[in-house]
């Protein structure tokens, strides 16, 4: 055996798998398909606005030719361009009338560099939702199974947040919250008065407000309120694989990382019911090679993981590895976004703030939970809120030039607020990732084909989220209140999940309650593909907790000789 463990992917899930497996004494290989990246020295976070290439603009012709999909992500600019794939080099297909935005980057650390850093726990409402309304299958775990692992990953990652005592948004191990600004504090008071079952709290986020000794020992420091996060953070103030998990894994002496290695397939030995090898293609030379280990963690991201399993066909698994259930690639979900509302507030003109806070506030789900009745859809939504005073940008739409314009723009503009809805999508078998039957990429691997649409429940939920957001802003005294608009294409929230779901029954699910494949005992999958339903909260914290839990389970089994 070359290694005790192989981890495919180095993003949020892969980084956690590497850390936990290495810390349990296992010689671990991380295989990353993208290029190597150096923490700090490869970031553009110390560039002032006038030093950023083209003031943030990516050339129009380059966007059209190479980044048509990736540029849809609001964090895409000239200082972050290195964190997105070129669509021209990494194509995928969809039906012509059913777009899907597959937003991603191929490099060490994956999307842990560009993630939104919002971190919330799922609750038993989420783990019980499928069983309650009969959509999808029941989760094989409940909150009590994962709660201690949330504790563990929150302490290590460093999560800033306020304790609220809500059943639908369990509290965690928090560093001090980033306080609400003047307008948000007034909004909170008003909303909690008018809608006593709703709550407004500081956005919980993976930022060090007060680093612990463990954080400092890894070279991480406190958040400096720059909000250059998506460029990478030289202070290591927010959690990423590069700032936290991979350095921790490295410290054990058990970590090996290979980059530019694209997993082509996993070889399966039916006599032993095990993965016998991980075949990779060198991204640059296109030469093939293979690695062996006792246990394999696939953390290649929801769509990437499905692609690898589907491509790993064998006599025993003609539909793809660990796919006797035919669930691999199915039940693709992504949070509903594009919904919510915005408005301006006439008050607080003598108040301002200092620093660029990298989070906002959160208004957790109430619909179909604490507020029931008069609802024509299942599940629900939460709102992330952002507010601040406008600056010079407002002049783009307002007439005015000369000394008068300069004078006016010296003073901040009115307060603005946005309520950004994140809605739950139901798991549907037809929302599906398959391999293209004819088209291949430059390495000869079949292209991914994504067919995913919103249904009637999603549309009804979106309408109500828009209506609620408008109503809340109006009731809090906002003006110019407008719904944000239409549902964006699936994929747009970059919360894709569900393509190798967990479940109790091997006939309907891919993974058991420990993220272990029902059909292949040394295969674990802990990225978003394992999610049996998608809840309403940002999912990365749950991937971290499930990964840590699965890695320690696997290490226990290896140690006891049961695997």
């Amino acid at each position, binding site marked *: 055996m070359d290694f005790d463990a192989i981890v495919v992917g180095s993003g949020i899930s892969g980084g956690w798998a590497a850390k936990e497996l290495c810390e349990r004494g296992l010689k671990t290989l991380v295989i990353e398909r993208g290029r190597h990246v150096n923490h700090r020295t490869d970031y553009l976070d110390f560039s*002032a606005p006038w030093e950023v290439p083209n003031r943030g603009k990516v050339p*129009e012709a380059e966007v059209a030719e190479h980044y048509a999909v990736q540029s849809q992500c609001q964090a895409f600019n000239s200082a972050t361009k290195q964190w997105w794939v070129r669509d021209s080099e990494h194509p995928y297909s969809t039906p012509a009338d059913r777009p899907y935005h597959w937003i991603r980057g191929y490099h060490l650390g994956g999307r842990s560099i560009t993630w939104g850093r919002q971190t919330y726990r799922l609750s038993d409402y989420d783990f019980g939702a499928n069983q309650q309304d009969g959509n999808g299958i029941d989760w094989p775990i409940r909150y009590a199974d994962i709660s201690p692992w949330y504790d563990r990953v929150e302490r290590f990652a460093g999560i800033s947040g306020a304790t609220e005592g809500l059943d639908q948004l369990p509290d965690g191990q928090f560093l001090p919250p980033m*306080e609400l600004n*003047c307008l948000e*504090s007034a909004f909170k008071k008003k909303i909690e008065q008018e809608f006593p079952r709703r709550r407004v709290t500081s956005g919980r986020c993976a930022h060090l407000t007060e680093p612990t000794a463990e954080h400092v020992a890894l070279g991480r420091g406190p958040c400096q309120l720059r909000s250059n996060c998506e460029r990478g953070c030289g202070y290591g103030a927010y959690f990423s694989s590069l700032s936290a998990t991979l350095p921790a894994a490295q410290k054990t002496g058990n970590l090996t990382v290979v980059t530019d290695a694209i997993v082509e397939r996993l070889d399966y030995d039916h006599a032993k019911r095990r993965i016998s090898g991980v075949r990779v293609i060198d991204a640059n030379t296109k030469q093939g090679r293979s690695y062996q280990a006792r246990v394999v963690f696939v953390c290649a991201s929801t769509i990437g993981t499905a692609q690898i399993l589907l491509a790993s066909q064998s006599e025993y698994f003609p539909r793809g590895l660990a796919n006797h259930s035919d669930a691999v690639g199915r039940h693709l979900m992504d949070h509903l976004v594009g919904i919510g509302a915005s408005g301006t507030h006439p008050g607080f003109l003598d108040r*301002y*703030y200092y620093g660029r806070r990298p989070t906002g506030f959160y208004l957790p789900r109430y619909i179909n939970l604490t507020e029931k009745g008069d609802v024509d859809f299942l599940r629900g939504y939460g709102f992330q809120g952002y507010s601040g005073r406008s600056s010079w940008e407002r002049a783009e739409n307002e007439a005015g030039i*000369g000394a008068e314009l300069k*004078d006016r723009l010296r003073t901040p503009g009115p307060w603005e607020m946005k309520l950004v809805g994140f809605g739950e999508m139901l798991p549907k078998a037809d929302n599906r990732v398959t391999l293209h039957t004819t088209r291949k990429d430059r390495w000869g691997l079949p292209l991914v084909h994504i067919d995913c649409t919103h249904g009637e429940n999603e549309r009804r939920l979106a309408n109500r989220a828009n209506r609620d957001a408008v109503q809340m802003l109006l009731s809090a005294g906002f003006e110019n209140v407008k719904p944000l608009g239409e549902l964006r294409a699936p994929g747009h929230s970059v919360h894709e999940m569900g393509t190798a779901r967990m479940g109790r029954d091997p006939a309907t699910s891919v993974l058991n309650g420990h993220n272990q494949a029902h059909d292949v005992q040394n295969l674990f999958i802990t990225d978003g593909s394992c999610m049996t339903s998608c809840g309403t909260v940002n999912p990365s914290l749950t991937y971290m907790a499930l990964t840590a839990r699965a890695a320690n389970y696997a290490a226990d089994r290896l140690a006891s000789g049961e695997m």
Partner: protein
Amino acid sequence: MLLGAVLLVGGGAALTRFARKTDAFAGSSGRAFNAEQFALLEQVCEVIIPTTDTPGAIAAGVPEFMRQILEAWGTESSRAEIAGVLVAVEKLAWSKFGAAFLELAPDRRLEVIKVLDSELLAAKDSAYAKFKHLVLVGYYQSEIGATRELRYELVPGAWRSCVPLSEIGRASAV
């Protein structure tokens, strides 16, 4: 472009001179501005963001930024749109005051750009929106615009969630 929205009918002689002038704007593949266009651009930018108790657009390098950004970032069609705005400025100067923009006194330059700004923004003219966007980005995201006209710190180091505006003084550039 909705140039018609700002065009008044000028005299015959003035239009003939205008036609001669605009010949110089023709053809600039890859390059954003020729020398004559750039001279006009500088003064238009300075009218939009003038020197007051802080430096204006020229001192902050806005015209040079626009040249650079249009060559490094813009497509041929963006360059044509921006050049079209300069044509509109020149047309309006001729039709309103019977002279080239650069020959006008400061108060008349201000009046030309004021009319252009209010009418083209009201008409939602996309070329002018792009022009004004670049002027504003060029100024307020320059070192002078961000740090002397407005407030900007690379490393704020702290979050103060609710403070009197008078303590901060001016709007933040980012």
